[in-house]
Structure formats: structure tokens, C-alpha cells
């Protein structure tokens, strides 16, 4: 969450707030204040997106550029924290992150396996929690597609 001049999301990514423009910072503060009032996840979801599109329009940026802004990423992260806290989503672990990566960036598990060098059989076992990948194997596989693993303090993620 926000700590002095930064915000750490649930994945451990740190967003510097000190260099943001006043309007972006003000928007982030507003979203944080609203999310702290524990609104229903869906109600919050309906709040943040119009606020962000208004912000994007005021800057004349495309929707895609908007999704790269700190405000957008923080708005989404606050929503995901609410979803987890209210039982609508489960906290991510490496398997669920891997699965989401496969489903959103590749058309099939086979395509993912071809790109990473992992065997389809092994991947199926890992996703079904029957086997684990070693850190080295996972690191090496992810590097093939431009991803990596990092260690994050748990206190920053809650």
C-alpha cells in the first residue's frame, strides 16, 4: 500500500508517487480513501474505471496508454485487494500466476510449452498441484518468454 512516497502493489511492484503530477496523485489518494471505506468490490469497480477514463481523457492519452499509468495500476490493485478480502478472488500464488499468464498471453498450454521449453505433461502436473517446478527450471522457462521471478516482503502485499 502507500508508504511515504511510494505504493507497493500486491505483486511487490513499487510505484514512486513523488514524481507524479498533482492530478494523478490526487486521484490515487481519492481512490485509496474510497477503497479504505470497504465498498463492495463491484461498487468500487464501477467507481474507479470512470474516474480513470476521465483522467485519461483530460491528458489526451489513449486507453492503452492509460493502463500503463501508475494511477490505473494502483486503482486496479486496490480493487483486487478488495476482491480478495471479500472472498471474490483468491490470493495469487505462483501456480495461479502461471495459469493466468498462459491463458491471457498464449492461445493454448501447448503454445506456452513450446515457447518456454516446459513439457506439457510437467505443466499439467504443476497446475494440478501434483508436482512442483524447481526455482531454476521455472526461472529458465520464464526467461524464454521475457518474464522473471522476484522476492517480495509479505507485509508489502497485504
Amino acid at each position, binding site marked *: 500500500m502507500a508508504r511515504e512516497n511510494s505504493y507497493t502493489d500486491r505483486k511487490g511492484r513499487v510505484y514512486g508517487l513523488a514524481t507524479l503530477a498533482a492530478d494523478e496523485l490526487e486521484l490515487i489518494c481519492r481512490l485509496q480513501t474510497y477503497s479504505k471505506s470497504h465498498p463492495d468490490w463491484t461498487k468500487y469497480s464501477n467507481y474507479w474505471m470512470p474516474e480513470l477514463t476521465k483522467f485519461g481523457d483530460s491528458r489526451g492519452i489513449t486507453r492503452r496508454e492509460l493502463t500503463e499509468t501508475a494511477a490505473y495500476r494502483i486503482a486496479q490493485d486496490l480493487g*483486487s485487494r478488495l476482491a480478495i478480502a471479500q472472498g*471474490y478472488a*483468491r490470493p495469487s500464488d505462483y501456480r495461479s500466476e502461471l*495459469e*493466468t499468464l498462459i491463458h491471457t498471453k498464449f492461445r493454448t498450454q*501447448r503454445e506456452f510449452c513450446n515457447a518456454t521449453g516446459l513439457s506439457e505433461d510437467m505443466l499439467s502436473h504443476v497446475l494440478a498441484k501434483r508436482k512442483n517446478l524447481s526455482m531454476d527450471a521455472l526461472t529458465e522457462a520464464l526467461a524464454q518468454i521475457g518474464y522473471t521471478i522476484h522476492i517480495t516482503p509479505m507485509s508489502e502485499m497485504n
Partner: protein
Amino acid sequence: MTHPRLLECSFLIPLVRDSHLSDGQPHDPDLWEWLDDEVLWRFGGRTLDLGRFEGFYLDPDTGEKVFDVSRKYVVAVPEDRLDELRALLSVASFSFAQKCIYLSIAGQVEFIEGPSHGQRE
């Protein structure tokens, strides 16, 4: 210059993964974030219905009655880009581990299947 007609489209995303295709557990929050990104990029935004959508259907594979609770998305889609929404929901059907996604286009209902159930595992 004429603009294509916008049609109100709504679709239901169940809150948990299909228990036959997957484990019946809630989704990873990254998936919900991904869906928001996609509808924003493609269609400029969405509204979520604040209601709780409870329903059931007969699973064609097992013949069992399956109950689910869903989130309802409402998106305005240009008439000439409906296939883009169908394609997105086909991916979503796979990503959210569903046999199909309920889609209503200006009141006409379609069930959008994933591209490849067989390749899930």
C-alpha cells in the same frame, strides 16, 4: 461520417471456475484485471451490474444441474465489432475455466464457448 450503431451487450462471468473443467475455486485477481484491460482497450469501458446473478443450467456433459453466481458486465459495442467481443469472450471462457459464457446482444442470447476445452489439461 456515419458512426456504426452501438449495441448494448451484457455477459456473465461466474465467480468461480467450473468444477468439472477445473477446481471450482475463485479466480486469480489478475484475470479480472486482464478482462478490465481488454474491455477498456477494445470498447472504451464497461459498467458492472451491482446485482448478484444467481442461476443454474444443465451441464451437457454430465447432465447435472449446475448452480453459479456471476458478475454481469455491460458494454456498448459498435455493431460492426460484435465479433471482436465474441472472440474476447471465447478467450475469457477458456481463461475463466468455463464451458461457455452467456452473452446477450440487445436482448438476443448467445453462448460463447472457449476455443479449446480439450487443451486445458
